[in-house]
């Protein structure tokens, strides 16, 4: 009796496990294309957001990093977009940065992923904060608590200085990446 019930236990659990694994592999097959399309869509939107007037995007790999070169209708390179990640207040933050390499300037930035506190750190995705970086020259930025009075200043979000500083650091390290890959920096 004891032996039988043990057998029954194992058979039951194994059966449920196998059925569950089978069903889930179908679900995985079915949803993966959609999930990948969503991610590609999100990335494309972010690239278009950070590079103005781009009609064609080329993916290139340099120094082991991926860059997206954006070209306008005449085939001129407008700029380069790329992602940079780093630690935030609650978790990893992923930023898409669009730069003008001819003038060593940032066009715009966009936040791809983050886990910051809703209502506080999550405001890094807001226009108000992101526009801090619009047309800023490359370099090291100062995070300040008042409206910026000169170049290279970034106004922190009230109550979320850490998130603001994290994004700034992620952007700075990203700029190092792009200048070393494209040999810029002059």
């Amino acid at each position, binding site marked *: 009796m004891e032996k039988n019930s043990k057998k029954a236990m194992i058979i039951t659990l194994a059966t449920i496990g196998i059925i569950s694994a089978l069903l889930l592999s179908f679900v995985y097959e079915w949803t993966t294309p959609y999930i990948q399309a969503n991610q590609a869509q999100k990335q494309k939107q972010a690239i278009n957001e950070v590079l103005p007037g781009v009609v064609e995007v080329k993916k290139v790999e340099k120094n082991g990093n991926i860059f997206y070169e954006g070209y306008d209708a005449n085939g001129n390179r407008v700029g380069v977009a790329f992602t940079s990640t780093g630690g*935030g207040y609650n978790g990893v933050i992923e930023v898409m940065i669009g730069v003008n390499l001819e003038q060593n300037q940032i066009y715009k930035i966009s936040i791809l992923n983050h886990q910051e506190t809703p209502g506080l750190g999550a405001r890094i995705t807001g226009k108000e904060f992101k526009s801090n970086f619009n047309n800023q020259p490359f370099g090291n930025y100062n995070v300040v608590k008042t409206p910026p009075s000169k170049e290279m200043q970034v106004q922190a979000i009230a109550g979320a200085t850490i998130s603001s500083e994290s994004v700034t650091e992620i952007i700075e390290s990203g700029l190092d990446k792009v200048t070393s890959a494209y040999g810029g920096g002059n």
Partner: protein
Amino acid sequence: MEEFTQILLLFISTVLINNFILVRFLGICPFLGVSKQVETAFSMGLATTFVMTLTAAATWLINTFILEALNLPFLQYVSFIIVIASLVQFVEMFIKKTSPVLYKALGIFLPLITTNCAILGLALLIPLNGYSFIASVVFGFGAGVGFTLAIVLMAGLREKLEFGDVPGVLKGVPVTLIIAGIMAMAFMGFSGLISM
């Protein structure tokens, strides 16, 4: 040395800044249910910390060497919950055989731990944050210490509250939740401690 500092910072931030109960909302059920007395709360915290540290190690190994190696991400939730359930069972049997005293103190809490969402939450956060093996174990241990800290503090407050004059409708759960809210506000004060 650099690495050691990183690990230490991770530990402190897991215990205080990103406290599992008060900031991440993981493990609320035992936090409300087993926080009437400091002594039982401490035992619960101890048992949870123990299981959390083991879970962090076990799920990191499984995720890295089985799920990622064989490209089976869709089995993540199913396998994590099985690992946790078996781990809890194993710990229970082990303690029962080796230390009857410890078993008496922790025994009744162990089955409760399987459905403590802090444990599964921990297992899920590790791959999400991309921690190394050592960082995962420290993260698990820190999460347990933070859990213990919050639940013991709450139990201390509730013991005092027994003598307080709480309006009838707020007795029990409501007042516990409100106190938790005030504790969460106090813990927000730690947020400037470290910038990761």
